[in-house]
């Protein structure tokens, strides 16, 4: 197992695998929001506000992975 270059692999794996879950999650949130707007176009404002809130929660998990990747790379 080569020792040099392990740090780069760790960085890439951290953010690569860490973005899988939130990517799917944000897609599902968008799906739910668009279906809801299609069913009830009047409530578009409320649905949009809540969608942005929940997307921020899901994206935060990807940001945790990104911060770990940055910490591995720069220290």
């Amino acid at each position: 197992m080569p020792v040099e270059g392990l740090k780069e692999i760790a960085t890439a794996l951290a953010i690569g695998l860490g973005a899988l879950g939130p990517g799917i999650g944000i897609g599902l949130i968008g799906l739910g929001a668009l279906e809801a707007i299609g069913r009830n176009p009047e409530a578009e404002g409320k649905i949009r506000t809540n969608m942005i809130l929940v997307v921020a929660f899901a994206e935060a998990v990807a940001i945790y992975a990104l911060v770990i990747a940055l910490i591995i790379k720069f220290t």
Partner: protein
Amino acid sequence: MSSGIHISLAAEKLFQIGNIFWVTNSLLTSWLVILFLIIFSYLTARKMSLVPGYLQSIAEITVEGIWNLFSTILQDRTKTFFSLIATYFIYIISLNWAGLLPGVGTIGLEMVEEGHKVFVPLFRSGTADLNTTLALAIIAMLIIQFSGLKTLGLNYLKKFINLSSPIMFFVGILELVSEFSKVISFSFRLFGNIFAGEVLLTVIAFLMPVFAPLPFLGLELFVGFIQALVFSMLTAVFLSLATVKSEH
């Protein structure tokens, strides 16, 4: 000639006040942003007239927009918490956008550190420093706990220490842990978004300085706005959850 990109996770220290207080470049930028906000509010509120002038219209649009946005979340308690939420929103969005100004991250000094020369930028976005975001998150959480205690009295602690059944006791412990995890998630969400944006802009400007940074600058403007919105909206949501009066 600086070699390669200069990216540092922690904010770089500039100079020392007294014997123990280090001023970092993100602290310097935060001070400048605060100064700008104070001067702006002073100039706006100096002569308030019924028919608003230019500066006053901008301030009114901002305040009214934030009020309308948050009055849907905190229905009748908007007035109590508005100053906190609006301050968070305006402060965080100003700090985020200040990191996009030309000169931030590029104007700097050459300092000698541990024997070799190192380039230290003079300005850095305030929220790209984990200390700032952690401080904002801790203050938000403390105010939420304090408001909960103030509105509900000591019954607020029944949310965390629930002795009615073993399952509810476990749920109470989980609630306690989730309060601490909220601090971590608030601070890391804001820090990660803004710091990653800065790294992205640095790398893109290093690779192709002429036209490529434009869409990324637009993305960073959007992300700065959304992160400020999410921070203040989540604080508002948790505040309204903590101060809900139980109707019996």
